[in-house]
C-alpha cells in the first residue's frame, strides 16, 4: 500500500534507513567472507525497497543489492535455495542493474534474468514493470 502518511515523515526517516542499510552492508560482507552468497542476497533483498521516495536511500539499497548480486557465481545453485517470495523483488533489481549499462553488471543480471524468468514466468516481469508504487 502506498501509505501516504509514511511517505511524508521520510525526511527524518531517511537517516534511520541509511543506518539500517549500513548495518545490512556489514552483515552482507561477513556472509560473503563465509562464502554464503545466497544468504547475502537474501539479506540484501530483505525489507527492500525501503518504504520511502528518498533517492539516497534507494541508491544505498541498490549498492548493497548490487554487491550481493555480483557475488553470485552459481546461478542454478542460487535458485535451489532462494525462496519464491524473493523472485518479484529480485526481478526489480535486475532491471535496475540492466539500466546502469555497466557491462559486467548487465552480463550478470541477464544471466540471472534468464533463469528467473524460467522460474517465475512472464507474470513476474509484468509485476515488476507495472509497479509504480514501490520503485527500487
Amino acid at each position, binding site marked *: 500500500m502506498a501509505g501516504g502518511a509514511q511517505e511524508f515523515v521520510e525526511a527524518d526517516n531517511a537517516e534511520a534507513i541509511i543506518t539500517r542499510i549500513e548495518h545490512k552492508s556489514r552483515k552482507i560482507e561477513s556472509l560473503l567472507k563465509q562464502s554464503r552468497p545466497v544468504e547475502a542476497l537474501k539479506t540484501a533483498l530483505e525489507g527492500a525497497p525501503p518504504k520511502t521516495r528518498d533517492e539516497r536511500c534507494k541508491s544505498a539499497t541498490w549498492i548493497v543489492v548490487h554487491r550481493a548480486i555480483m557475488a553470485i557465481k552459481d546461478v542454478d545453485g542460487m535458485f535451489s535455495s532462494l525462496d519464491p517470495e524473493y523472485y518479484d523483488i529480485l526481478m526489480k533489481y535486475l532491471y535496475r542493474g540492466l539500466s546502469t549499462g555497466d557491462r559486467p553488471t548487465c552480463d550478470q543480471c541477464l544471466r540471472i534474468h534468464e533463469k528467473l*524468468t524460467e522460474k517465475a*514466468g512472464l507474470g513476474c516481469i509484468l509485476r515488476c514493470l*507495472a*509497479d509504480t508504487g514501490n520503485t527500487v
Partner: protein
Amino acid sequence: MAAIEVHQFAQCITCHAWSSDHSMVAFCPNNNEVHIYKLFQDKWEKLHVLKKHDQIISGIDWTASSNKIVTVSHDRNSYVWNQEGSEWIPTLVILRLNRAALCAQWSPKENKFAVGSGAKTVCICYYEQENNWWVSKLIRKKHDSSVTSVAWHPNNILLATTSTDGKCRVFSTFIKGVDTRESKTGTTSDSKFGEQIVQLDLSFSWAFGVKWSPSGNTLAYVGHNSMIYFVDDVGPSPLAQNLAFRDLPLRDVLFVSEKMVIGVGFDCNPMVFAADETGIWRFIKFLGERKTPSTGSKYGSQFSGAFGKFYGQSKYGVSNDGVETSRTSGGVHENCINCIVPLREGSTSRTTRFSTSGLDGKVVIWDVQNQEDLLDYL
C-alpha cells in the same frame, strides 16, 4: 476439451452479450455497430445490425428477463434497445459524460444499469416512467482515473468498480423511488446514493475486471501486474487475498461458483482459480490445453512469443517455435480475451457454461461440467 463451441464471427470483437435463452448473441465487431446473430439449424445467421452509435461500442449487456439491450460507446452516449416486432428500437440515454463510456452492466433486477467511463465517473441510469426517459445519475469525484469495469452485487444496491488508478471500490447506488428500503442489507442499510462503502487499495497498477460471487460474499478483481485479488467480508474490515501468477495479466473474471473463478486475458487461455476448504485461493490450471512448463531451451523463444502476440502475430516469426507453442497452446483463442459472459440456466447460482470473446474475433463457449478435476469446486 472444455471449449464446446467456437464461432469466428468477426475480425475482432470488443464485447458480446447473450439473449436470455442463449439463442441469440449480440457483439460489436470493433466498430460502431452491434451485430445480432441467431442460431438457425446449426448455422448462425446475422439477424440485425444495430446502427446508432458514432464510435466503437465498448459495452453491451442484454437483460435476462425483460429483453432489453444496453449499449455504450466511446461516443459518450448510451442506447437502450427494445424489440418491437422484428425491429430493435433505440432510446437515447444521455450519460452526461465528457469522455468515452467504457463498460456497462444491468443491475440484477434490471431496473438500473451502471456505466463506467474515462471521465473518472460512474453513471447509474434508471427509467422515469412519468417522463418516459432514462435518467443518468453520476458518482463523481471518487475515482482518480478511468473506470474500467463495473459489477452489481446481487442485492441490486451495491456496485463494485475497478479503475486505472489501481483501486477497487464499492458504492451504494440506492435511488429513491427505484429501490425499496427492504432491498438493502446489513451494514449498508443507511447509505445514500454514491456513498463509498469501501476502497480496496491492493494494486499498484491498472485494475480491470471485477465480479461478485453468486452470493455476493466474495469479490474478485484483477490487476495489470499479473495478480488477482479475492476479497471477503466487503465492508469496514475486508479480508483480502492477493494471488500472483506466472503468466500474462488478466482482463476479466467470472465466478462459476462460490469457490471457483475463471480469469481471462492476455494469455489467450482461460485460467481456473479455486478456493480450498480453508478458503485459500489457488491457481488450478488452464482451461484449454496448455504448453508444458517451459524448459531452458524454450525460454528464449517464450519472450519472442510475447512479442509475436504484441505485433499481431502470424506475420511475425511464425517459424519461431516459441510463437507456435504459445499460440497453439489452447488452440482456441489466438489473441487477448477481453470479455467473459456467464450462460446461466434458470435461476441456479451455479454457472457451468460461459462464453469468451476477444481480439481474435471468436466467441467461444466453454463448459466446466465435463472437467472431472474441477467438479469439487462447483
